[in-house]
């Protein structure tokens, strides 16, 4: 029996806004798809493109990065730096064959539980439509 496709999303959430926002979604009992695996990071400025590439390599269908709104960074400027890096990473991922729809950057504040649920829902829907990532790479030995 074929197993129904469930997109795997790796989410990197900043500790101060988005992680708290996801917490609000939970304590407010807002339902959203369980496809996301949340990884808490101190700041969206912590996001090394390596983390994103590695997530895809290890089989993620989508990667979501969420941080404080620009101007609201707990460390004043972390998300400004992140914004520049990620704005370059997105077209680069597309260039090496990872559809840009699979990589999202969202700004979610600590009070935006509802927005968080919407973000995850719409991202999951989109990944359903895209289908599983073609992992045509021959698997290594060892």
């Amino acid at each position, binding site marked *: 029996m074929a197993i129904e496709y469930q997109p795997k999303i790796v989410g990197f959430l900043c500790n101060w806004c988005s992680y708290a926002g996801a917490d609000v979604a939970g304590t407010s009992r807002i339902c959203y798809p369980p496809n996301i695996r949340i990884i808490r990071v101190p700041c969206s400025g912590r996001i090394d493109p390596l983390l994103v590439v590695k997530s895809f390599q290890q089989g993620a269908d989508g990667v979501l990065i969420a941080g404080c709104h620009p101007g609201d960074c707990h460390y004043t400027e972390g998300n*400004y730096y992140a*914004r520049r890096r990620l704005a370059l990473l997105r077209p680069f991922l597309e260039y090496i064959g990872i559809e840009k729809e699979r990589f999202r950057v969202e700004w979610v504040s600590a009070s935006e539980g509802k927005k968080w649920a919407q973000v995850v829902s719409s991202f999951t829907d989109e990944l359903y439509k895209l289908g599983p990532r073609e992992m045509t790479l021959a698997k290594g030995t060892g």
Partner: protein
Amino acid sequence: MDLGEQIRNKAKELIERETVDCVIGYERATDGVGARPLFAYKPEEVDRLIFDQTCTHNLAKYLLNSKDKATAIVVKPCDSRAINLLLNESQIQRDKLFIIGVACPGITKTGLNNTHEELQAACQICQQHTPVIYDFLVGEPPASEPDIAEAYADVAAMEGQSAEERRAFWEEQFSRCIRCYACRQVCPGCYCTECFVERLDPLWVGIRIAPEENEVWNTIRAFHLAGRCIACNECERVCPVNIPLSLLNRKLEKEVRQLFNFQAGIDAETPAPFATYKKEEVFPELG
């Protein structure tokens, strides 16, 4: 007076007056036609210096090994941008450097024991024939730079393909990578004492033989040079399995120019795109 003679005269003067400890330049390779790096410490060694269209190496990389001593270096325009990059990143000191810039006619394709007429790919689309930084200029700089409309023709062609086609293309390319890291060793921008690829904990790039590990290496290598690559294209030249690394590097170069209006190594002062930000900027790419 040919370029080599001008370089030899200047180098001899610098060594004899002990202005510098060493002159880094080119000499004829043992195959008799190519060029190889020369480190001249003594006046008699200076006589071996040459310059012609086979001098492909980007010697700026060697400056990282002689940080404490005054050094003279022969640079082509692309290599001179590497010096600006290293100055900008505080890796070398300007007052310990004497830069012999060469107005470059373009470098021909290299091969063992033979010469080619055809210019290297990077030289065919080069728009910088005069060094951007030098103390002493050799050769005649062109009156104007060529206007090359389609410097990114191959990158644009790649962008025009579908995601599946690009995926298939890069998978095939990366699957050939033997992770010899020659691209890194030759790159003046790759000077981390511990490269992410050699970290054991976390093991970012597994040591097993696997195309997907190669992919992590190649994409992150390119991204670490985003806004830093000075387009000497040495990485592609030394790749033993001919992965078209310039397609990755120049994609990033193109995006960085569009997004941040920045080109690496043009001067030593402008902060690199990822070392600064503007509060008011917006990025439709993120949307």
